[in-house]
């Protein structure tokens, strides 16, 4: 039996991309309007009594430690309770989990979880690449984002014979899905040959194996199943969630062909939802790099360890495959505005479960959609949320 103590009544996002013309606050307003406007029976935003803001990088303002008061005034809710949540790449998905706990505890009634991230107000060199100079002065020096995942590709290829073509098939599929997603950053098809021939970034990953740097925002409105009945006749419930951590240094991993944080986070989420991986109809997973999606589908239990590359190139994760993965285009095509990413994935899950995903709609048989992020130092934190249409 699933947890089902929280319902999603609205969700929405803005068109992801290099939004040079939009401010952080304007992006937030756009996502907020989209979420509020999506509520079936209409919704007065003053019903919201708490906001959780998911923003991973505060360095836009020259200070990492921004607070939760950055958003309420931008969305016309100045004065509301508001807290910023930060948890690396799973920032958005963890803010959602925190919001769910706030509702389930009875402390708050209607909660807005809003993810907003400016990735492109600073140059690449000063943005994600500058990460190479962060952390330990020697032991992590040079560890830009691809370095967190590329070593796993090297090892996965060594142990399982995974090929660059198999990695490329993930990019081909997600770009195809992105073409069908009006909110995606990239809306163009790519071929295996193009992925293989793209400039090298961090061996064995090339440019099209990597997600872009994307600005974006997404928002979701949650409440108790009882209150949800006031707003919608087609409620979606939170079936379960899980968070797990692992050691923060790359040299402390127990394996280089999987991410233990994902395994444990999903185990907890499945247990809370009372389901097994086979019950999941569709999954939005963390594909910051092609190898990451291959690790994810193994670690989440969709395919056997070592078979992720083969499953991908065989089409098992396509829209019409055995387990459709990243119908939205994923981070590779839709983009990865870090704090917004998890909320945008949950929005896609909400649409898929409600049959609102248009051309990219997958077959929903069991009524379960899974959302996943993994990241942080040494990819040491993962969050999994599971939504369902199967009511209490």
């Amino acid at each position, binding site marked *: 039996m699933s947890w089902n103590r929280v319902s999603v009544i609205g969700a929405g996002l803005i068109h992801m991309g290099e939004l040079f013309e939009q401010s952080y606050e304007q992006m937030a307003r756009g996502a907020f309007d989209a979420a509020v406007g999506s509520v079936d029976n209409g919704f007065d935003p003053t019903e919201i009594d708490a906001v959780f803001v998911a923003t991973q990088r505060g360095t836009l303002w020259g200070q990492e430690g921004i607070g939760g008061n950055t958003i309420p005034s931008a969305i016309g809710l100045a004065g509301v309770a508001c807290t910023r949540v930060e948890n690396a790449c799973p920032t958005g998905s963890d803010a959602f989990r925190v919001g769910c706990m706030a509702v389930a505890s009875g402390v708050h009634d209607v909660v807005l979880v809003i993810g907003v991230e400016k990735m492109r107000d600073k140059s690449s060199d000063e943005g994600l690449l500058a990460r190479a100079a962060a952390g330990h*002065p*020697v032991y992590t020096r040079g560890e830009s984002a691809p370095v967190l995942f*590329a070593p796993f590709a090297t090892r996965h290829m060594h142990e399982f014979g995974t090929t660059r073509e198999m990695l490329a098939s993930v990019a081909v599929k997600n770009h195809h899905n992105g073409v069908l997603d009006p909110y995606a950053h990239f809306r163009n098809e790519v071929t295996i040959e193009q992925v293989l021939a793209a400039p090298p*970034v961090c061996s064995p990953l090339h440019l099209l194996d990597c997600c872009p740097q994307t600005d974006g925002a997404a928002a979701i409105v949650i409440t108790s199943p009882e209150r949800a009945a006031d707003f919608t006749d087609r409620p979606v419930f939170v079936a379960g969630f899980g968070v797990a951590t692992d050691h923060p240094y790359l*040299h402390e991993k127990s394996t280089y062909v999987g991410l233990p944080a994902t395994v444990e986070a999903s185990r907890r989420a499945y247990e809370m939802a009372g389901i097994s991986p086979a019950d999941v109809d569709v999954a939005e997973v963390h594909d910051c790099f092609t190898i990451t999606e291959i690790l994810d589908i193994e670690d989440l239990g969709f395919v056997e360890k070592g078979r992720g590359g083969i499953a991908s190139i065989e089409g098992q994760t396509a829209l019409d495959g055995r387990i459709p993965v990243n119908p939205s285009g994923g981070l590779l095509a839709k983009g990865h505005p870090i704090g917004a990413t998890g909320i945008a994935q949950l929005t896609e899950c909400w649409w898929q479960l409600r049959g609102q995903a248009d051309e990219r709609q997958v077959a929903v048989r069991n009524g379960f959609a899974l959302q996943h992020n993994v990241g942080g130092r040494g990819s040491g934190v993962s969050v999994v949320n599971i939504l369902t249409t199967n009511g209490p």
Partner: protein
Amino acid sequence: MTAVVRTRSLDASITAVGVAVPEWRVAVADIDSAWGRSPGRGTLAVCRADEDPLTLAWAAADRALTAAGLSVDAIDGMWWGCTRPPFAEGPSWTTLAATLHLDSTVDGALFAGSTHAGVDALLAAVDAVSAGRVHTALVVTSDALLPATGTGHETSAGAGAAAVVLQSDSGPARLVRSAHRWEPRLDRYRGDREAETRETYDGRLFREQAYLPMLGDVGDALVDDGDPAGRWSVPDPDGRLARALLKRLATPGGAAEDVAAGDRSRLGDLGSAAALVGAAAALGTPGPLHLLASGGGRVSGITVIVDRPVPGAEQVAAALAGGEAVTYTRVLRARGVLSPTGESVEMAVPPGSAMFGRGAGEMLGLLAARCVDCGTLNTPPDVHPTCISCGSTKFDIVPLGRTGTVQTFVVNRTMPSPFEAPLPLVVVDLDDGGRIQLQGGDDGADLAVGAPVHLVLRRYAVERGVPVYGWKVLSAHSRQEITQ
């Protein structure tokens, strides 16, 4: 007229030797052509961006200690001579001592100020050993001169290091005599705020009034008691002076042999390291051997009697051979003369900050916290109050081993300044059971999962003007490590 030269007898022995030179070789002709000059001959050993006199000093010292078969605990003094220590003022000596795991009570000194610094260090160590103040001394000489761009000096200045272990007991090579003299000569110099060493004002003046007479007089003083002319290791600041000096040093005993001639044409002049690097291979063959050094108007000579091959000497030729050809453009970039325009990414942790204070010793010494309960090696210690394997909180601090195999690796090709691509990052399974993530020390072309590797000291960054050192990973088959 021969000037007064003072000689004195020495009483110490060399018990082991090690040398190190960078892998990069730049053709003198490539430098000449960039400046529109007719092409000269030979090559120069030059530093990569992550090498400097300290990393070379470490490599030579490590080899000498290995050749000596000594535990580092046996060393009770370290003397280092270097024209250009990494800190003109600052913790150069202590940084080197930390990388070598010297005990915190070890004696010694750093000599700098001119290319005479190497022999200053050697003689100071000899005196300490002779006096019984230390029993086993490590003497390191290293240099990577930074010549003024576009000058003739740039076509002769190389980089390298040599280290010897000294003891008072009768060793395979005895230091028996020294000689010295000085004049306040403006030869090659740089002012207090100058980065590059200036070329001599007048090359002919230097040759005729300083180099030949002063080194000739000191050389004569070393042999005037009737020794055969024998073998010589002499400095050659412009690549053409040694030949004239050796002619001058010929005696009725026979022609003087320049033991460093071949290496010098491939490596260039090695500044304060020239005398010992030049003599290192010859320490493998019995017979007398004379070392000359000069700089800042001072000239010293030392006579060594080799009774039997010095441990480490037979690895010298291999350590000085080989190399990777690089262009002058790459050399200028590594030297920092050519640098990209625009912003450079700052290290998140300033080198003067408390975290560096906590981490400096464990970074330089490659230290781990070994769990007392389960033996797991936790690295680095200061961020591991709790064992990652068993949760214990009791540790012994131990140095990690420096050999292992590749668990996994990447080669990063998209790096903001000041990083330079390609930059390999490697997770190494060390043979002692530790595991560590470090940068690769070359382009990573030889890396493969399971391949044997070893760790070398390199300069990770010059951050806010401060050199930051740590360990990097090289393939065990790399040409850079061929002596051990």
